[in-house]
């Protein structure tokens, strides 16, 4: 077990900055889970007498125009960041991988499905997400779907590319010529070998999902505005940029830190990756 853990951590031990990324992600998950215990105030508690306070001993990150404590809201915001990240990654993997694998295994399916992916990719990502959210209505779940659709396409392309390469590998060909069924082949030979490239893709998707969600929030079309997400905090405070510049600093810094850390993690994982898959990953990025 420890040996396995060591192999997992190896890319991070070799590169300090990647380790930093991993730690930040760990702290964020911790904060998200224990938010109500760590946060000094109720993130929704209104105090009309303490509006727009600068950072003080009582309110380390200051307060917004409702008099709500920014630190507590930032801590609670990590919950939403985690939900969005995990949600978008799951959505992208659960839809993109089957689509990509099926396309690779059955060229006829691929002709249709990958064409569909091409069509979706022709839409600017944010506009696609915006359109979906307006159609579906504003909620956290719908924000996940709207952003997830954008990464469905890239994930499907990667799964397709990797799967095609694997399909051509000698041992898979051999297994197939021995009469092993397609489902068996996929489950036994293909999916296990896709885990590493998909893990890389997952960490990048997690990172970009943060930025995508923040943009949607900023345009007022992301998570419902009463939700304390970092993007919503920025959107609500933007008119106070000259009067209370610190209001935008902390939530913004959290978005950057999260996305940066996940990018570092993804980068470290990618460098350890078989070069054959690296090309597939590189060609399919989009934000």
């Amino acid at each position, binding site marked *: 077990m420890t040996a396995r853990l060591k192999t997992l951590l190896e890319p991070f031990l070799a590169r300090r900055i990647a380790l930093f990324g991993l730690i930040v992600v760990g702290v964020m998950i911790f904060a998200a889970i224990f938010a109500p215990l760590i946060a000094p105030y109720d993130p929704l508690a209104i105090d009309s007498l303490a509006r727009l306070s600068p950072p003080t001993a009582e309110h380390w990150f200051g307060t917004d125009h409702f008099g709500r404590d920014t630190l507590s809201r930032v801590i609670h915001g990590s919950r939403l960041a985690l939900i969005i990240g995990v949600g978008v990654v799951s959505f992208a993997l659960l839809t993109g991988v089957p689509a990509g694998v099926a396309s690779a295994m059955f060229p006829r399916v691929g002709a249709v499905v990958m064409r569909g992916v091409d069509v979706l990719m022709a839409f600017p990502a944010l506009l696609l997400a915006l359109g979906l959210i307006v159609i579906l209505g504003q909620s956290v779940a719908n924000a996940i779907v709207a952003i997830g659709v954008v990464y469905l396409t890239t994930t499907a392309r990667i799964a397709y590319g990797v799967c095609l390469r694997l399909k051509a590998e000698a041992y898979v060909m051999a297994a197939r010529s021995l009469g092993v069924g397609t489902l068996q082949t996929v489950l036994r030979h293909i999916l296990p070998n896709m885990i590493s490239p998909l893990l890389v893709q997952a960490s990048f998707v997690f990172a970009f999902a943060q930025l995508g969600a923040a943009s949607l929030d900023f345009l007022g079309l992301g998570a419902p505005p009463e939700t304390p997400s970092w993007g919503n905090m920025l959107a609500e405070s*933007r008119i*106070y940029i000259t009067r209370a510049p610190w209001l935008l600093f902390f939530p913004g810094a959290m978005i950057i830190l999260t996305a940066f850390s996940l990018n570092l993690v993804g980068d470290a994982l990618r460098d350890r990756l078989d070069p054959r898959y690296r090309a597939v990953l590189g060609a399919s990025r989009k934000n």
Partner: protein
Amino acid sequence: MNDFRSWIRRGFVAAVAVAGVSAQAAAEGTLNYATIGEPPSLDVQVGTASIASTISQHMFETLYAFDSSYEPQPLLAASEQVEDDGRTLVISLRTGVPFHNGQEMTAEDVVASLQRWAEHGSRGKLLFKEGAMVEATGSHEVTLTLPEPNGAWKNLLAFPNGGPVIYPASAVGAAGAEPLAVEQYIGTGPYKFNEWRPNRYVELVRFDDYAAVDAATDGYAGARVAELDALRFIPVADVGTRVAGLQAGDYDYAEFIPGDLFDSLDGDSNVVIHRNGAPIFGLVFFNSKAGILKENRQLRQAIQVALNKEEALRISIGPESLWDANGSFYPKSSVWYSDAGVSAFSEGNPEKAKQMAEEAGYDGTPIKLLVSTNYQFHYDQATVFTRQLAEAGINVQLIVVDWATLLKKRGEEGEWDMFFTHHGTVPDPVLITVLNDSYPGWWTTAESQEIKAALTGTADVEARRVAWADLQQLIYEQVPAIKTGDVYSYHIASPDLKNIGDSTVIWPHFWGVSK
């Protein structure tokens, strides 16, 4: 294909023309006005957006206009005669008033405009009820025949927002229900339409042949003198940008600045604060047609009791000089002011509310409150109210949508229990949307219908005032809607603008203003 060619050609011509004169500085006499956004159609007969009224009042005129104390005075009308106990109104028009296309305004144009307003105008039905008609009884005389006297008739003819502005008969003939095309923006006002470039500006230029009323300027009434060469209305949705742009001299006037910037702007010598003369107020409508609040008057009252509107105003607006926790639907200075019922305005008593809700049989079912974020103070106040109601054990579910969705959704009775909007000060209570039977909320109780009839059925001012006070009292008892308090929005102007006054009447206007 034609379209395609024409815009290319137009763009090319414009580019060449503009490039040729770009060496010249901006005309001295152009006023740059930063608006909160792109106006919808400027055809104010059919639309009621404030921004459209602000712009179009410089182009289009009504038969009457309000003076600074909100009394209607003749504008395109010269005089009137009221006959048959107020059922027949004979209005003679001023002669020699040209439209921007050069034609003289006659009774024919007025009849065509009023007929279109009666049929398709936003507020036309308030005056032109079933059986009412208008006809030309001379080259410069029109006669309105009403089935019942209408005490509000002159106010209704003077209110341009969704109101009866006068267009040439040729322009309205083709339009019908559809907003006028920009080529048909022809009026009698001191400025005429020049150009609308989407996302960039709407430009009006001075109308040199304008025929002014022979009376001193007073509010919207009296002479309207165009001193400036042109007015440019530029959409600048971001507030920070409007402020920074005005301070930098890019704009001469910027509208709707949030309260939290008031204190810093108040001391800035580059900025003149121009306060709105009349307040606007938030209104939370209750669904009288469906849902949990439909007939549960006691639960409505419980909600009313739970709310502390002062707290909501302080949070959503900021400086105390910009809001007033006033329960009356009219400010103290108005002839319509009354304190009937206002003791129930802002009790902020969660315990009492909790008890009332229990007595009303409330079981914790979520109450759906529809609100949009397009107007920041709607959302801010709704957020505060949600907290306050939670303290009284009343469970509010905020449904946050954009304005377009809200306008659609509120028409669907099953979708909401309360919705948030706002209302401007109107010169006559009949214009208040709470009294409108078909406005979502649908307040049509027997008591309300009776008093509404008393309010319109007479021309006697004193009787009408009493009827309105009774109605206000009834609003606080039956709670068809909740007024959330007066908000004095303000705009900022460059100190170079002369003769602009301290405050607006309702919408900022720029005749008489120079720079």
